[in-house]
């Protein structure tokens, strides 16, 4: 099927079967490789993107369901060389080691803060729990999210 996707505010024509994962289309058809493959079974969150404002695991999100909805990936966050506050906070807290999970972590956190700018600790843990960091930078990631939340109080 031929469809038009709205990714990071731009229109992209894509030809693929309706059930193709959004992740594969983003990475391989559109070249947006900031979004990562980690498991293909919605378990690790490395592929997290925003679809219609909601954080979604794009590895199991079918292409046909993405049509007509605004999609945002990690590539959309920094604007004119200025980092999103979450990206800056991840740097400032040193919230990464190998970094492979970081795009997904930041997108999941972005979705959380967009809806709930001042989440409690438990709300952060609850919403971030679908994202795995094997290097164990979890406490710093939570600190980074809290830092951004604090700054907007």
């Amino acid at each position, binding site marked *: 099927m031929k469809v038009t996707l709205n990714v990071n505010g731009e229109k992209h024509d894509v030809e*693929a*079967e309706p059930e*193709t994962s959004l992740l*594969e289309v983003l*990475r*391989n*058809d559109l*070249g947006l*490789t*900031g*979004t*990562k*493959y*980690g*498991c*293909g*079974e919605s*378990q*690790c969150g*490395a592929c997290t993107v925003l679809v219609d404002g909601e954080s979604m695991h794009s590895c199991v999100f079918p292409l046909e369901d993405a049509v007509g909805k605004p999609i945002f*990936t*990690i*590539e959309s*966050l*920094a604007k004119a060389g200025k*980092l999103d506050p979450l*990206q*800056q906070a*991840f*740097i400032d807290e*040193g919230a*990464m*080691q*190998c*970094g*492979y*999970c*970081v*795009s997904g972590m*930041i997108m999941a956190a972005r979705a959380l803060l967009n809806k709930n700018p001042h989440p409690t600790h438990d709300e*952060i*843990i*609850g919403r*971030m*729990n679908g*994202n*795995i*960091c*094997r*290097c*164990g*930078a*979890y*406490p*710093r*990631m*939570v600190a980074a999210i809290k830092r951004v939340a604090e700054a907007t109080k």
Partner: protein
Amino acid sequence: MTSRRQLLKTLGGGILVLVVGPASLGTELRNQRGRAQATLQKLSAWVHIAESGVVTVFTGKVEVGQNARTSITQAAAEELRVAPSVVRVVMGDTDLVPFDMGTFGSLTTPRMIPQIRRAAAAARERLIDIGAAKSGQARSSLHAHDGKVIGPGFSASYASLAAGDMFALDIPADLELTPAQNWKVLGTSLPKVSASAIVTGTHQYTSDLRRPNMVYAKVLRPPTMAAKLKTVDTSKAAALPGVKVVRDGDFVAVTAASVRLAVKALELIEADWTEVEQSQHSELFKLLRGAEPLPTTATGPKLLAGTYTCEYIAHVPLEPRAALAEWDGKRMTIHTGTQRPFAVRDDVAAAVGLATGAVRVIVPDTGSGYGGKHTGEAAIEAARIAHAVGVPVKLVWTRQEELGWAYFRPAGVSEITSGVDDRGKVVGWTHDNYNSGPASVESPYAIDTKRSQFHPANSPLRQGSYRSLAACFNTFARETHMDELAALAGVDPLAFRIQNLDNARLRAVLEAAAAKLNWTQKVASAGRGFGIACGTDKGSYVATAVELTVAEGNVRLVRIVVAYDCGAILNPDLLKNQVVGGVIMGIGGALYETIDFANGKVLTDRLAKYRVPRHHDIPVIDCVLLDRKDLPSAGAGETPIIGIAPAIGNAIFNATGKRLRSMPLKLS
């Protein structure tokens, strides 16, 4: 292999400092201004100062999240007296960097960092020599500072001093490195140098690389391990548009213009396999232990014997094995995430039938390894396919392949016997480990009669390295047993350890962890317990203390304190990140992770079936670093993991009275 001439041409002018491994080679290079005499293969690192002033360090180490790129940057900046921002580090490119065995064993810090510091310091001294010659001033009146050689009425940038013909020099024998007490860049918390590329998603991991005309590959896997291909029909797959089938004996792969098409082609292959009978998970520990009786057991007034077990676990690097292979008819260039680029180069050459000089392996900063990427499975497969199809081939293993077809941390059995006297002194000790490995099987406690032995076994599953490998389980067995002995002797577990230790560094981390947790004030109550453990591996010392609760068989971690000593600290903040990260990874092996298998098949081949630590598992973690500026720096990527499992197990005993002797720790 790049020739010296090619390397010099690539680098342009400037100063090149070569670091020779064995001391005997030093004379070959001495005073050889104008040319490097030693063969590049014999060198262990080099540092180049370009006419632009940019400093480039070349090393065979790779970056897998342990922050070697940052600490190497600091090492060069420190000794060259330049800002870290002018330092570039070329890592893991077999055409450009000196041979290196690989990034493992926590060796980057104790072995590579000093070599790079020596090279940088030699370059600095050489620049001062040139400054003295140019200015006509006494050498002793000049010093290096912020990329310049400075003296009374004289200041010249390295760029201006390094201009002209390339020359190479060796390391003077009497070269002095900057003592840790005087460090300005090392010892500080320089942020990870690649952080902004990571948070913006622009860092290109192997799996992100793309090339014109690139195809995606999938490899046919057998239904069970060691199965042999009987017959295969690939005609339906080959009929798909643009799909190519590659077959070489039992190796069958497909390529296509998209992953989805490659997956479809793979599904259309009809294969028949001859499978072989294999051992079962239920008989694992019996199999590893064997029937051989123990050589001796401990003696003493009060005797104790315990058997401990550890399951196979997987590394689960979040970036699975991946490779991009490009064959131009003469040379094979492979980007892949591996901890041993030179070994993978050799393996690829052998698999494809090329000379090693015809293979180049490049390791982009990789989505972690933890000892799980010592091999080059994806690189070898991608190279075989690229050699056959003649266009760039990308192969990214699925999570299912990564869990099912990579290697595991060894399962193991440990048997410990001990004796303790009336004063609470351990007087006899034996530790026999089966299959895990020899690391940390020796007890660090002061015991008069000790015997420790590692017994290799036939592993039913493919096994290999892992963060602190055997030290993890051997420490679990020993520290659990020490806790049991403390209970038998009626002594507090911390006091019992300290009264049996004469190792000052181990004692110091134990006391630091206990003080931070306020150990002596902590009293177990119903369902709430405290545990402590300590250990040493690869020249570092760790103590871990845990507070947890147990309710209805569920363990809830409340607080972890980890105290760590790895000598002089290179980067306190990144060290903390490693130490805490190691502890968090260790929670998985302590409480959740088990590879289940049957009939030659891994059953836990999805993350839904293989539980790793997540956000909600992580308690408050305090990290206490003991900075020993008087001691050489040791690596820190591994040892912090070894204390967490026994500390949790001992806390569970403290909370419930139930002694658990198996990893992972299960109450029911």
